[in-house]
């Protein structure tokens, strides 16, 4: 039995305001610092902001890269530099009730670990943000190991190199040995193969023997 359910399209979501909401009675402080220029292009200044709590408090940059985040109540904050192209490490800034500032590295795992940083803050980029995968460059090895190229090279190898190898007496011996082994292993299959390919294995022998008539006969049969 199928039970239907109304899928009520009411989506309820509430941004519960954090309890440390701006309180007019609380002491307010200004966080100061400077973002060191990540590039020589001056347009980075207007595209960079310093955020606390995802934009609840914002510090905009002046020409020299300095910023002041105004009217921040006492508490602990994670300060982020937002720039579309350059990455900066976030910094945790703590303001105590006496108005003293302390800056340290953000460590979400080891909460008790404190790596102090200088205050007023000096923020330096840790590098350009890499958003994109790099396209694979054309390389000779890529072409060589391309399955299609392999497909072309392998028959070429079989056609051109293998007959030459066969002329070498040692390899020929090895091949014969291999063949005899396969004969032992699967006699029926080899029988079938020999009957199918006719006198093919005898072909090199015939070539060694200076008997033109026999070779003619062999060649005729194989090509036919």
């Amino acid at each position, binding site marked *: *039995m199928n*039970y*239907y*359910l*109304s*899928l*009520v*399209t*009411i*989506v*309820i*979501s*509430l*941004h*519960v305001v*954090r*309890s440390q909401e*701006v309180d007019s009675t609380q002491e307010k402080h200004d966080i100061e610092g400077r973002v060191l220029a990540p590039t020589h292009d001056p*347009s980075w*200044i*207007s595209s960079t*902001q310093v*955020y*606390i*709590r*995802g*934009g*609840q*408090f*914002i510090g*905009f*940059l*002046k020409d020299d890269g300095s910023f002041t985040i*105004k*009217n921040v109540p006492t508490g602990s904050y*994670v300060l*982020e530099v*937002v720039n*579309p*192209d350059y*990455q900066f490490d*976030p910094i945790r800034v703590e303001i105590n009730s006496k108005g003293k500032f302390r800056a340290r590295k*953000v460590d*979400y*795992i080891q*909460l008790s670990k404190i790596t102090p940083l200088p205050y007023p803050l000096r923020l330096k980029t840790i590098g350009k*943000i890499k*958003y*994109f*995968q790099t396209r694979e460059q054309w390389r000779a090895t890529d072409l060589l190991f*391309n399955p*299609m190229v392999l*497909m*072309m090279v392998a028959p070429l190898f079989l*056609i051109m190199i293998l007959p030459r190898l066969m002329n070498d007496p040692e390899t020929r011996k090895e091949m014969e040995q291999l063949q005899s082994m396969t004969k032992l292993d699967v006699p029926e299959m080899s029988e079938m193969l020999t009957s199918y390919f006719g006198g093919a294995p005898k072909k090199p022998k015939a070539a060694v023997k200076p008997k033109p008539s026999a*070779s*003619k006969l062999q060649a*005729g049969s*194989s*090509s036919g």
Partner: protein
Amino acid sequence: MLKYLLLAVLCIAQTHSLYEDQVGKFDWKQSYVGKLKFSHIDSRANIKRIYVASEDNAVASLSLGSGTLLWRQVLEKGPQGAIVYFHYGANSLVTVSFNGLIRVWNPNDGSLLAGWTLPLNIRHVKFMVDGGNFYAIEVSSAIKTVLVHTYKLASGSLNDVVKKIPATWLTESTYCETNQNVLACLVQGSVKILFPSSGGQTQILEQSVPSATFLTPVSSAIGLPSFKAGNVVITVNNKNIETSQIECNSVHVDKTEDTNKVLAICVRPLSKSNIEVDIFISQQKISSNNLQLKTQIAQSDINVQSCFCKGSSPSCFCILSSQDHTTLFISTQGKVVWIREEALTSIISAEFLDLPVSDVDAAIEKEFDNQECGYFEMFTRRLMSQFYQIQTLLSIESPAFKSSALVRDKFGLHKLILSVTSVGKVFAMDNLSGKILWTLYLANVTPYSVTGKQFAPVFVQRSTRYVPYPAQVSILFKQSTSKEGVLFTLDPITGQLIHGDQGQKLGYQVELSTLLPGVNKNHLRGILLLDSNNQIHLEPPSSPVPKPYFIYKVHPQFGVLTGYFVQEDLKLQKVWELNFGQPVVHVASKNPVEKVHSQGRVLYDRSVLYKYLNPNLIAVATHTPDNVFSIHLVDVVSGNLVESIIHKRTMGPFHMVHSENWLVYVYFNEKTRRNEVSTVEMFEGKTQSNSTAFSSLSKSLFKPILDKQSYILPVSQVDAIKETITEKGITSKHILIALGTGSILEMPWMFLDPRRPAQVTPDMREEGQVVLEYTPELPILSEAIINYNQTLYGIKNIHTAPSGLESTCFVFAHGLDLFYTRVAPSKTFDILKEDFDYALICLVLGALIVGTVVSKKLASRKTLKQAWK
């Protein structure tokens, strides 16, 4: 170290990021500022620009010619960042925010020149900028004085002693406004004009306006500060008062270049797409122009933001802002230069809709749609459709090609985005280009709102699939005055309203609305509406209701959930009630279009763990004032509380995604001061109770096995989360997380999987399954940011929808910026890679053919030679 390295390698393998040359290929971004609050046209500079400040706390510069955004700075969110004063002059832009911050911007690039805090309570202060000074004017009726505080604009240092202007006429009801360097106060039928910035004895001018009940500053040229009191426009021209009586709600005051006469520009909307612009000189109408708009605007009122005029027979350009948040730039000669649809910053609902098939395909469909006709008729239809096909092949000017812009493509990648905004404006956009196809303004409506979040339900009643019938979408709003429901039914392709401009007035307040699963004979899905008396209404009234049918209702403020059974006679029967006693902050149900492909999960020992796929399961989140956050999993048919999870010392914002057999939610852990993600996955066990259909009632006591896990999300703020969705549900799921810093992060479900083992044993790896070891912190990879360096301000929500390709999912994020892209969580396995080397495959095939022919020739020659030896 090795572990992390391995993780990093896996991450790279898992995230399918863009190549640099794919920028803008699948995505687009549109930047907006929001409804205009203040603006200024700088016509004197070499590069003509417009400076604006908006209701969404943005300060921006627009190009005069095209209206494109040159730079934009977004101030603090919410009412704290609201811009209360804006001034442009002497190469600086001044804004005053509600939180008391005065900022001076460089108009060229939007960098900050100065910023300081006003040491006054901003609520009772008016502002003025004159020269290099900033004046804060306190009008105090208690001490009958106007106090003028003067600050240096560049530093914020107090310039002078506080100037006191005695004003014995001040009363409690006195209302004052500033415009340029003038303060005007409305006192019992007369307007007093003061010049707080001028030195020495302050002169007070007076103008009697007996009928005036309000006073507003009016857009005016520099040196002509003007106010509107009642229907009288008061202009202060060189310390003289000039008045003019113009019957117009919105005016701009300027002067003619040669004769120095005061002229007034009046703009009034005539209809939804027509405005009239009149110019008055000495109260005489000298010109009147009618402007045709390509969009629909609110007919009620339009506001002239600012203008600039030139020439002796005045030709003016004005920025207008209408009630529906549209910004228009017009010339008084009767030309609309550009239109910015700023209402798009207030989207509350969005839907991806299919486009219709092309005319040729429609003809083929028509051929088969009617089963009753005879053989002969079917044969003639076949001939006709084939003739039509030939015709389209031969001629380019056929109707099929004309409408080709809005036609469904082979892979279902071309769709229409229907967006509904809180101001009542509806937009249809092309998903590939982002172009607005049509707009619709619905007057006198307000959206519904639950726990502070606005929404307007959108029901796709019929898609474009049923060819002779057009697609049909209904949007539910409530009337601004009576709060009763209004249903707007429209064809989403053309934007034509079916029941007229006023919509279908329902005559009752809608408590709950839902789309029914069954269709009527016209392939139309019905809408079930529940009014405040628990009466069920169906729209259209004859819609079939499936049996049995259950609905549930949430009372967020009391934390009460009620389940009902819909009886044969459409009466409601209460089945169950759950009382959490805590306010509900979020309800997450599954996406109704979601399909789950795999019923279970193969473990490394080759056994199958079956998923608990209950379509009736919802997740309800409650939050108490003492910061206890609870998640309840409720089966809404039986009322069975499947599980409750409690997190103590947590704070919002909360976000939740419920899909397949899992739940993901984000919260802020107050104790550890970090954002955390928790995931819950539900399984039936090693056996499946019923493999064909899930029933909530047959096993009401059944409890699924729950796997839970929490991870640290090393970001400061999350604005929205959403899961990807694909057509058949074969593709793996990713979670899209909108970060407070303006990025959208694509997080594979694999990282959030609650079954990530503490230690990966070799036999887990042997089975060829990718198993990640548990790490507390989730990786934030820049390659997984789908909007790359295009920062999106204030993302409100993300919408996802399946495309015609199983691998691909559409993403549409909106806030102050709109962003659309498509993602392929398992990579695009069903289409060839775009960098597929067609040349190489042709080359190889060609070479192989040539090789075969040549070698055949060579071989026959060789055998011939050997035969002759």
